[in-house]
């Protein structure tokens, strides 16, 4: 079943929540309120929402340090995410994980990861658990095209196929590996061919089209659940902001970014909604709702206490 047009306004709101979350973090970061690094996912909202909405709540997911949107789309509470960014006791990891380690097993989120490609075997292991437990959970792992030159990427694809594991590999190809143009350091930058070479179905999807992403992941999940093994999905998208805050972006022309803004996912879904008969006022309402969700999360996070120093010494062992 494709993503029902009735759910597109919700998807639009969800994508706006992600966008506004990142904008709020940027402002906090510039104001010196965020510790550490922040890797924004602005421009990549459709692949996050389309992919995660095609899963069940108890399906597993791992994501990357550019994964705020992926985590929120899977169901992580916006309040808990914002509080984590501000290092508060009410954060999803009580302030111990931060921007690159959003986690919430109650929605299947087995962690974002700060090591490129490290989440692939973790999700695939969760898929193995599902297979051994004779459950029908699938696991999805997000990674960037910058991950496809890591050894563990190849190792994991091989094992997933050999053991026919219910896992979905979603490569968000945003064209840049940190501050380097990906095709300059990758022998064949059509990464889906790497998935294909292991003998799994591999598709290229317009990652800025939430409906296309949903359809691709839904088909992959259905195949995985019925014992058909893994699928590789290469989602073509574009990173509208830099690798991280403070990235001077000397590796690309401003015109390139300006062109990408014309086809970015939220603009596109807005047009699609209008084609379906929604008015500008309907879109404004969704926008206001998203803003209210972020304002609420900000207020919650700002009013939350910092963790007590003694908390630094808990949660090392079970």
């Amino acid at each position, binding site marked *: 079943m494709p993503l029902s047009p009735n759910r597109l306004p919700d998807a639009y709101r969800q994508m706006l929540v992600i966008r506004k979350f990142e904008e709020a973090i940027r402002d906090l970061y510039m104001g010196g309120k965020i510790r550490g690094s922040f890797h924004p996912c602005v421009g990549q909202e459709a692949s996050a929402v389309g992919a995660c909405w095609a899963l069940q709540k108890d399906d597993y997911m791992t994501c990357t340090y550019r994964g705020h949107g992926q985590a929120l789309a899977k169901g992580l509470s916006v309040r808990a995410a914002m509080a984590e960014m501000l290092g508060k006791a009410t954060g999803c*990891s009580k302030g111990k994980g931060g921007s690159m380690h959003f986690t919430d097993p109650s929605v299947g989120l087995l962690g974002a990861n700060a090591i490129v490609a490290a989440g692939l*075997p973790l999700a695939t*292991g969760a898929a193995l658990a599902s297979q051994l437990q004779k459950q029908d959970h699938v696991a999805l792992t997000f990674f960037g095209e910058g991950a496809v030159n890591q050894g563990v990427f190849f190792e994991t694809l091989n*094992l997933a196929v050999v053991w026919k594991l219910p896992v979905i590999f979603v490569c968000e190809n945003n064209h840049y590996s940190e501050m380097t143009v990906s095709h300059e350091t990758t022998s064949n930058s059509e990464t889906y061919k790497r998935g294909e070479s292991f003998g799994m179905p591999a598709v290229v999807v317009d990652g800025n089209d939430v409906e296309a992403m949903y359809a691709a992941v839904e088909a992959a999940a259905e195949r995985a659940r019925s014992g058909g093994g893994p699928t590789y999905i290469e989602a073509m998208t574009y990173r509208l902001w830099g690798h991280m805050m403070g990235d001077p972006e000397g590796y690309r022309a401003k015109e390139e970014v300006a062109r990408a803004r014309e086809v970015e996912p939220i603009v596109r879904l807005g047009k699609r909604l209008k084609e379906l008969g929604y008015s500008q006022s309907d879109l404004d309402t969704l926008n206001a709702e998203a803003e209210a969700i972020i304002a609420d999360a900000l207020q919650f996070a700002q009013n939350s206490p910092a963790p007590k120093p003694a908390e630094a010494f808990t949660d*090392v062992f079970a």
Partner: protein
Amino acid sequence: MPVLTYSQALNEALREEMQADPRVFLMGEDIGHHGGVFRVTKDLIDTFGPERVRDTPISESAFVGLGIGSAMAGMRPVVELLFMDFALVAADQIVNQAAKMRYMSGGTLSVPMVIRAQQGGGRGNGAQHSQSFESWFAQIPGLITIAPSTPADAKGLLKSAIRAGNPVMFIEHKLLYSTKGEVPEGEHIVPIGKADVKRVGRDITIVSYSRTLLFALEAAEQLSRQGIEAEVIDLRTIEPLDMDTILESIRGTVRLLVVHESHTNCGLGAEIIARVYEQAPDTLITPARRLGAKHVPIPVAEALEDAVLPQVADIVKAVEEMM
């Protein structure tokens, strides 16, 4: 009580835990029909099948990572590395993932996984197949590190490790597999974090573990003939370290020698001795000493390897100098 080899004792622990808990499964290279290079998983595939005794490709990063992922999703994997040296291939998954997952998730995830491997020298396996890594592992918060020296401890500690609910580095020694000892049948549990006094003595405390523990016992026999009675403590668990047992012993013997096969430099001996001087500063009447591998890679030729790794004669000599 039945007498088993160290390998058989480990095999028995795996078999019993797999029978008792359907979440327990095994992954590793050649562990299925081949039964493991050191026979630890012998015949387990016949009882539990290839689903629970899984032969892996030579992809340490991936299958350690799959172990972690499966543990986070409710399984209890026991992952075998052919040689502990190969832990370095999977270092990201062990150090950055397994050890930190619970902490980074604010306690919402856990990784109940055992990584077993044999390590150490004495067999001429060369510099990439003879290393000892327990001091490294002990430096990583979030890992439990265990190194049993006897078949009974091997069984009891492996059972505890599988039930620990946390990532455990379970260190075996390639030259202990054929050693024999009495092993209690059935439910035999050795607690994690508890050292064992393997020989009682009044004159000096020798702290060791794994294969050099046997060296320490042999040295103690020789010293006894000269009238020197060494107390020999088997740490069994490297992290968490049982300082209480060490401190209690040195209050009686007032001398301390730490012996291990890993490199002396920044090794466990340094850690134990530092803690002794912090926690019981006026106890020792002669400076504590440590014996470990000299600071070179482990060579192959017997004459060279023997010169690098601590031997029984080195222990005897060190003790004599301390008396």
